[in-house]
C-alpha cells in the first residue's frame, strides 16, 4: 500500500464508522478496500477487520485530508463562507 492509499484508508474508516485509526489501520482498511474492489471477497462473506491502534498515535496523517472554514465572528461572514464552499444542506 502506498502512503496515499494508507491516508485514504484512514479517511474511509473514519468517515464510514466513526473510528479514527493510526497508519497501521490505514494499511489494513486499504487492503480490504482493494480486495473488495478487485472482487476477491464475496459480498456475503463475514469479514473481520483488525484495527490495532488509535489515530491519535499518528495524528499528522490526518493533516491535509479536510478543509477548515476560518471566519469572522459574524453571521454574514459565516453565510459568505457557506455560500463559497457550497456545501449542500
Amino acid at each position, binding site marked *: 500500500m502506498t502512503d496515499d492509499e494508507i491516508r485514504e484508508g484512514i479517511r474511509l474508516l473514519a468517515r464510514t464508522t466513526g473510528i479514527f485509526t493510526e497508519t497501521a*489501520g490505514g494499511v489494513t482498511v486499504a*487492503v480490504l478496500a482493494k480486495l*473488495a474492489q478487485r472482487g476477491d471477497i464475496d*459480498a456475503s462473506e463475514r*469479514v473481520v*477487520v*483488525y484495527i*490495532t491502534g488509535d489515530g491519535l498515535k499518528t495524528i499528522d496523517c490526518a493533516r491535509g485530508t479536510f478543509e477548515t472554514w476560518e471566519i469572522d465572528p459574524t453571521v454574514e461572514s459565516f453565510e459568505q463562507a457557506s455560500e463559497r464552499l457550497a456545501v449542500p444542506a
Partner: protein
Amino acid sequence: MPPESLRCKECKTTYPLEARYVCEQCFGPLEVAYPSLDGADPAELRRRIQAGPPSLWRYGDFLPVAAPPPRALEAGLTPLLRADGLAEQLGLEHVWIKNDAANPTHSFKDRVVSMAIARARELGFETIACASTGNLANAVAAHAAAAGLDSYVFIPFDLEEQKVLATGVYGTNLVAVRGNYDDVNRLCTELSADRNWAFVNINMRPYYSEGSKTLAFETVEQLAFSLPDRVVCPIASGSLFTKLARGFEEWVEVGLVEGRLPVFNGAQAEGCSPVATALQDGQDFCRPVRPSTIAKSRAIGNPADGPYAERSTP
C-alpha cells in the same frame, strides 16, 4: 492448561519455561508448548471463559500465564463493531471492526505486554525493557508503571512525537536511538545478553507473542462462538498474523467452535513489505529491506516472524 515447555518451531527441541527465545541447536525461534487438550470438555471450557474476568484473562486456559498478577493493567475484551457503513461503501454485507484501539494504551500491544510482564514477574525480573516503534513503548511503560517495576524503552529517534510523549509520561527510562527500528532491535538483542532484564519482545518473546491469540478468541466469542469467513490484519513482525491464525486453530481443535478456518489477508505498507515481496517471489524467507513509509509501526525491514506469516497465508 499450564504450558509444559518452550519448543523450537523448527527442530522441536524443548527447553524449560525460562527467559529464552532462540534454539541452541538450530537457532530457530522458540514458542510455548501446551499439553494436548484431547478429551477436554468444550462446554466446561466455555463455562470457564464466560465466568472469567472482563479482560483477556478470561482465556487463561489457553495462555502461558493463567491469571493476572497483582497490579496488572488489564487489557482486551475490546469491542467488535458491525461496520455497515463501510460494508455498504465496499459492496459487502457483513463487515466487523475489531477495535483494539480501545485497549488501555490504545493499541493491541497491551495484549502481548500483559503476557510478557506476567511471565517476567513469575520469573522474578525487576526490570522490563523493549525495542519499539511506538505502540509497544506506550504499553511497556504503562504496564511496568502499574506493576511498580522499572522499565527501559528504546525507540528510534525519529518516532512520532505523540508516541514519545505518551510513553515518557509513565515515568520510564526513555532511550532514543539514532537509527531505524531494526538498529534499535539489534542493540536491544545485544543488551539482553548481559543485562538481567526482561526484554518483552526479545527474551520474553515466546510468552509475549501468545497474547495475540486472544484477539482470535475474542472474535469467536463475540460472534457467538462462530468463525468469520475472512480476516484482514496488519503485518509488521508477522507475530500478530501467525498468532491470530493459531488462536482460531486452537479453538477449532478443542471443539470450542466448528467450521472452516478463516481466509487470512495481511496488510503491509509499500515502503516496507518484506513479507508480501517474499510471497510474490515464492520464497520461504524474507529479504530484509530499508523501510520508507508513513506507517512507522509497520516499518520493520527484517521481520522476526516473517517466514511464519508467509506460511500462514493461504
